[in-house]
């Protein structure tokens, strides 16, 4: 378990900055210092050039396990490299992939409290959808839940943190938020990549020692919550995923059982 992080989801890490940083890190030498990144961003005319410091951005990417630091230099992790390769060709996937990371990291490392905040907000929005996005209300929910979950009475989580979450929810396509960013609705479907990553996450979380995972109503709902989709689309998405990925099999004996063998994020490069 890594060092326990704060509950705050940094609003500095916006999708556009993230994309540009990933591109710079992908294209540059293995390790780059912040100064080198800044120089490259200025040379490219990236929006990053408007920022004086990349410290917070790099810290967030490190927490998301997209980069690793070696003294002053940073480099892409394996998953960071995979994602950067994927979004090079499919930029709309960036928001989806970071959303999945933010949502699921807490399950693999409970020290990553920002991930817990992120999923708490997403789950509340999903459960109450269609709903208006009340930032103060979301702050209250996270802080109250933090008391129950972690016995933490005073956490660092504000409307700025909610903004940090909404940036990524807003970047999803199909959209969850309306143009005014005031109303949240479940999506009618989602990219297949998001769906398969959500399936894989739950498969790894719940299958235990077994080879297959029974797709119970609870598992289906969890997948829909991660993907922020309507439950009605689960079956169609599942069938599409089954036909699109050789490593995904669904056995339909005594209920649907999911088997994912040899699946990893590298499929994004294919």
């Amino acid at each position, binding site marked *: 378990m890594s060092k326990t992080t704060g509950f705050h989801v940094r609003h500095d890490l916006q999708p556009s900055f993230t994309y540009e940083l990933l591109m710079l890190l992908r294209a540059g030498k293995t390790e780059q210092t912040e100064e080198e990144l800044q120089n490259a961003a200025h040379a490219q005319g990236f929006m990053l050039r408007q920022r004086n410091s990349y410290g917070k951005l790099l810290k967030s990417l490190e927490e998301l396990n997209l980069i690793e630091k070696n003294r002053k230099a940073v480099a892409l992790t394996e998953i960071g490299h995979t994602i950067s390769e994927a979004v090079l060709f499919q930029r709309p996937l960036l928001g989806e992939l970071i959303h999945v990371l933010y949502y699921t990291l807490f399950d693999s490392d409970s020290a990553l409290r920002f991930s817990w905040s992120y999923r708490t907000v997403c789950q509340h929005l999903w459960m109450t959808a269609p709903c208006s996005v009340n930032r103060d209300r979301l702050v209250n929910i996270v802080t109250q839940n933090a008391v129950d979950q972690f016995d933490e009475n005073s956490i660092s989580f504000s409307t700025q943190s909610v903004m940090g979450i909404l940036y990524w929810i807003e970047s999803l396509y199909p959209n969850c938020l309306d143009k005014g960013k005031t109303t949240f609705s479940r999506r*009618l479907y989602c990219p297949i990549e998001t769906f398969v990553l959500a399936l894989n996450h739950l498969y790894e979380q719940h299958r235990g020692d077994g080879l297959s995972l029974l797709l119970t109503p609870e598992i289906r709902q969890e997948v829909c919550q991660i993907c922020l989709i309507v439950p009605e689309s689960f079956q169609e998405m599942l069938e599409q995923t089954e036909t699109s990925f050789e490593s995904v099999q669904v056995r339909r004996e005594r209920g649907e059982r999911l088997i994912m063998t040899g699946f990893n994020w590298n*499929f994004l490069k294919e």
Partner: protein
Amino acid sequence: MILNDGLRILVDKEPVVATHVGIFDADNAENTYQRYRSEIETFVVAPDILRYQRQFVQTVLEQQTTIACLVAPFGYGKTSTAINIWNACQEANLLAVPPFSCNSIAEMGQAIATALIHRLESLGNVENASEVRQAFNKYLTSSAKRLAEKDAELYGISLEVALQSIEDKIKSGHLQLEASANHLLSFLEELVAIVLNSGFQGLVIIVDEFQQFLGNINKGVITNFRTLIWGLQTRGELPLAFLITMDPDTERNLTDRGADILHRIRNHGLYLTFSSIYDREFPRELWSRYAETFGFTKDSANIVDHATLESIGQICERPDLSNGPRTVINIFQRIATLQISRKQAYSPIDLINDFLTGDIRFDGDRGTIASLVNEITSYDYIKRSNERVETIKLIAAFPRGCPPEVADKYKIREAYNYLLDELRGEIFVELPEGVALVDLQKVGKPPNKLNIILKKYWLQITEEEIISDKALEYFSKYGVAPLFPDYVSNQNGWKAETDRFLLTSSGGYFRVYEGTFFEEYPHRRIAVQVCFELENIVVPDGYVDAQFVFLIQRTDVNEPILSEDIHAIPTYIIPIPVHQEYSRHLPRDIRDIENFLSPVVLTPGVLVSLLNYITEQVPKIEGMSEQEHQRILDTHAKLQEFLLTMSISDQTFEPYGITIYSRGIQAFRDALFNILRDQYPNYQSIMMASSWRRLLDQYLQALEQVNSAQRRGIEPLSAQKSELAMVFELRQYAGFESYAKQYNGLVEVIDWRGDSGSIIFHRHPQENVLIEAISLAAGLDEDSVYIISRQQGYLDEETQYLIDFLLLRGYIEHAENNNRLVLASTFTLDELIGIARQTLDEIEYIKRLSSSKQYEQLHMQVKEILTSLRDETIDLSDAQVRLLQYQRQIQVECKQIVIDMRATVQSRIENLYRYRARFDEPLLESSTGIFLDAHVNGAQRTLQKNIASLSSRIQKRISAMREPLEQSIDLAVGDFAPFESYISQAQKQLQLAEQEESDAQALLEQCAVHHDWVQLVDRLKRLKDMIATAAEITDTHLLEQTLERVQWDMQQELASEGLKQYRSIYNQFIEPINGIQRELETLSRLAETRSRNGAFSHATRADREIENQPYSATLTASEDETILSEQLESKQVNLKAMFEDSTKQESEFLQHLINLNETGEIIVYQRKKHK
């Protein structure tokens, strides 16, 4: 043969030819032979099969061991083909075992052995039949004997009984003893020898339905099969052939488990897969063959027409709609059956009806046609009219398309046309051969509307479409336009100058966009061209910052195309190999599209064509749910994203030395930033914000309000904060510092504390560039300035403001003669030094006129400039501006000085007028009659003359002073000389006026003295009269002498000094005269008192008292008279006596007075009480 006989044969023909299974004995062998012969009669040999058959037979005849294989799906006639080959072999004098199926090597051996025994015995060759039997026993039943020996020993029975029991079980099929492949090989070798001995050319074994043999394809089976095939291979020159048939699934399984076996079979060159050899012509040929064979050639067309045969052909060529030849035969049997009973030609509609009723059993195992027709004809819209139902059925019978002529033939053309109009796209698709059901096309049943669009696209896509000019138009629309996101603000987004890409005269497509991605480079103008050849590039109107040419390449190009600037426009060529297959799959969400398009491969040409098709089709689809619509748009967006991502990669701009890290729109954006930065390295936009024009107007207005030095940033502008804000038309100064930052350095806040602040204006870097350009060219017209500026990235709007700034700052000006922009005139160094010196002189001059300390500072500043000029360390233009600035300050001061001078002169004139008015009063004359009158009146006349003279002079002075007064009104202070002259003249006049005033003052003084003299003479006259009166009562002789003497002296003084000492003479004699008067008055009182009281002593005392009176007494005559008369009328009192009766205690002062009174030092009178 009559018609019905032939048809009955056909009716009886089994669609599936049963393969022989097991041993060939007397009971079943003849049946098999009969069935096989019957099949041979009606079998239509396809050319490919005939070729194969001949090669097979020939190979055996050439004494080569042959391994052959036929692969086809069920119903495609594998067994029929095998039977026909068997027949061909027999005709070639080969001993061929009729096609059979088996489950094991043992069964195979038994079947072969029994078939040969049956065949040889039927030929009467008992001996060879016996040899076969022996061989079988030798190789394939030895294992049974061994088993019998064990059973005899174990159960204690005889060997014969045990063997009989086992053989019976083998015969009945209850026991199968697994023989090895090696045994079979040895058995076959021996059989070949027997066969050859029997007069045959060779032995042929045909194992049908080989999947039966392979079973579950376990390891033992594979091993045996491998041993058999490998073993046959080693028997290279044996006239032995081994032919197997199998379905594609078995072939696939065998490939997985024993690919090496299939490879060895294929090596023999007799491996035929014939699912596709039964094409649409097969039914027609087969029917023709049947007609010939069964003798109804003449009636053939009446039984089934050409259109129906075509329909059957179109269905049976599709494995998803039929079971191939088996379906054909099934249909023909149905036709024959119907023909016998109803005598009516079979139509395509009959065919579909039979599919619906199930009378055609072999419908591809999925019932696709039946379920589809059922679904469509169940719609109310269709089923309300029988013709519509019939039309649907007719069209369903033609998956490749039902020609309108067929509809004519069946008299449903009207419904055909009507439904086509109504259901085109949704239900029907128009194909080259006619109208077909959309859902019967290869792409299968559509799960959604997007798939319908994709299928329809696949149906209509042509090579011509992809390579035609439309490719340019489509690429412009879907591959280029999205690179320029819509306009949002000056700092973000683009506007196209035309509503669409325009077709150029050279055949390309052209469009200009204006906008930007970057706030550093607002309002860029970018030309985009899409063309097939570089020669198609046209020249854009007006200035463009860069030009992108998307070169649609119809052939593969290996080397990158690098362009020089075309028409002096920086041009970047982006090659798009329109036919090159993408190296990358579509995103997973939409990867199925690749399958839909198969065998068409995905290329840029196909992709843009597909994008356009989807765009056009979406509005035409009715009843689409929002979700479907959204998904189609989503797919469209993803396809477009893919197109852009693949069209512009991180290597696209590498030939131009531009390194980018991304792809697609982002790559284009990044490349454009690099291009603009390299092209305009020094560009710094002045369009700082969305309200840039208002900001710059405010800046201009601010410049207009400040002085030249401040405009040039030589001096800061310091004032109250509110005043500074007002310079920029801001009513509040809160936030002014942030406001100023919007100017990107054009104005800088250098101090902002307390209530006041300081700002300084700076030149924009491009202003310096323009100054230099205008200087080098010795003047430029404005158009040239715009061009120079535009080449450095500046927009015309920006340049206009920069010119305005320069004009206001005084660096440039419009030439008077030709209106060109020229550098503002500047003095030479020597001239400026002269001006500085002159300015210093002027300051010195002004300093003398004013006591203000500011001139000291001004003097110091000018002196500094003078020093800098001498040292040549200052820009002449700046020095000039500063000197002018100081001169303006001087001018302001001069103006004030003139105003002050006017006031002074005016005041002097008023004074002079006042003096002159006083001179209008006439001077008194003396008329006492004494001699002094002559002197005083003489003085009066002289004074009168002086007054007249001075009045005249004053009048002239006033007139003289009015002149500078009038001059001052129009005096231009810009020129120092007139000012100096004016001041000098005014000062001179003031000086003269002062003199006049002084003279007038002196004259007025003399007039006043003269007045005193007149009074004095009058007093003298009265004194003389008083002395004469007093002489009657007292001796006044002495006084009279004194008076005469004084009078004489006065005459002498006046005569000698006159007006010169008019006052001093007067002063000299006034006191003696006063003394005479006082003495006279005293004498007079004493004389009067004596005359009343007779007390002479008192008179003496009174004399003494008078003598003791000081001359300086100032009593007037009337007062003296009053006192004197009171003394005379009062009674002397004795103070001591007066206070003796008083009860009050005497004070010390009173005691002193009493003492004085007693000694006579003081006399006290008691005033007479008035009644």
